[in-house]
């Protein structure tokens, strides 16, 4: 039985197969409408996340399956003090596959340890959010036609942003990738990641001003400064609007550069850019459903008729 706890749980070849399946789902949605008939997905969300939860639920419904679960810890037995291990043992009796989100890092790994059904990590605190990474990779592959030979800018909260960390790890496995890390000094990429990139001889630059590198990028991955990752509200208020991408800055970008964002957006991308053909963040949401459909099928070893 397989789980997805980290994007590295799948080899590059397995990811290719997953993305091929997701691409086929995109083109032939009807073929997959009954693949999960009679199957149940449990969504165990110990912290609120409308987008990720709805994306999983949409994916399962589009495959013909059903969904049960809870949307925050106060509605679950966790509020009575039940452990993750006990919860997943119980959920294993009710469903065929489980997506779990928990504020504590490593919670999904604990669930996988005690589960009788495949577990998908739908976010464990600031640690991993692999299905967002799979969404990002599928979006990049679909829009750029490749996952190698790319200059990727990551902008915003690069310190606490788990989607950023996962994306860096995931893209590091492809050839000829160059990273541009754009952040205020307080929110720089952690040293263990830059150390690893140096070891792997993957080129990267750390800059403060977005304008300095915007013209060099194939992709710009914007992130939100997340309030819940800060212990100190003053720091959050000082840093939350450090970057705002607008039409003026986008004049510096290439015509084929794509803007990605894990959403929700606050102020970091001006709404006037939504009509710019390079704004790919809502298409990214759609790819999130396709890749989750492909993932559910893969972990349940299901194929279309």
């Amino acid at each position: 039985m397989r789980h997805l706890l980290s994007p590295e749980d799948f080899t590059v070849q397995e990811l290719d197969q997953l993305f091929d399946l997701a691409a086929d789902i995109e083109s032939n949605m009807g073929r997959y409408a009954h693949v999960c008939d009679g199957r149940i997905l449990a969504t165990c969300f110990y912290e609120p996340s409308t987008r990720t939860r709805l994306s999983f639920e949409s994916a399962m419904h589009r495959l013909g399956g059903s969904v049960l679960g809870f949307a925050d810890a106060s509605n679950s037995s966790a509020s009575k003090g039940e452990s993750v291990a006990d919860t997943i043992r119980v959920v294993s009796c009710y469903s065929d596959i489980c997506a779990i989100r928990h504020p504590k890092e490593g919670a999904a790994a604990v669930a996988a340890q005690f589960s009788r059904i495949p577990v998908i990590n739908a976010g464990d605190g600031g640690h991993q959010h692999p299905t967002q990474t799979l969404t990002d990779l599928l979006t990049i592959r679909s829009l750029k036609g490749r996952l190698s030979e790319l200059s990727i800018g990551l902008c915003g909260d690069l310190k606490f942003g788990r989607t950023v960390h996962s994306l860096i790890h995931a893209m590091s496995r492809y050839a000829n990738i160059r990273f541009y890390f754009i952040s205020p000094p307080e929110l720089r990429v952690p040293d263990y990641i830059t150390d690893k990139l140096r070891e792997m001889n993957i080129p990267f630059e750390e800059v403060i001003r977005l304008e300095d590198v915007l013209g060099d990028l194939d992709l710009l991955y914007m992130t939100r400064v997340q309030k819940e990752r800060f212990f100190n509200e003053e720091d959050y208020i000082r840093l939350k609007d450090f970057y705002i991408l607008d039409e003026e800055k986008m004049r510096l970008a290439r015509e084929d550069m794509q803007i990605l964002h894990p959403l929700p957006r606050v102020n970091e991308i001006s709404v006037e850019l939504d009509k710019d053909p390079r704004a790919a963040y809502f298409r990214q949401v759609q790819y999130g459903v396709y890749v989750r459909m492909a993932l559910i099928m893969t972990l349940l070893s299901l194929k279309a008729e």
Partner: protein
Amino acid sequence: MLNVGKIEEGFVLDHIKAGRSLSIYHYLGLDRLDCPVAIIKNARSDVMGKKDILKVECSIDALDLDVLAFLDHDITVNVIKNGEIVEKKTLPLPKEIRGVIHCSNPRCITSVERGLPHIFYLADEEKGTYRCRYCDERFHETDASVKY
């Protein structure tokens, strides 16, 4: 000079940092074994100034010494059979450490989940870096203490 008699079969753990022999004694579970153990504290050492030594008379299969390398790199393990040293062991860093050190990351699931063993994996053999199996937080000796 203090003299402690020879042992017939077992181990002599030499070059233990002065003052740490009792910690090692507890970690290896020697308090639970019904065998002769000599704890020598603050023995004179040309190289270390002072050192501790543990002499344990037991079957050589009775102890799991893997974690010693993590606890103290400089410990020498002499294996004794028939009263003679038959092997001087150099211990590689263990691939996994279970239930010895605690994760200090307050965001880690181990901080709230009951009955979960604290497990660390060897992330970088060259640097001797260990990371928590659950949250990947690096173990810093200053953050956590060995737990018995």
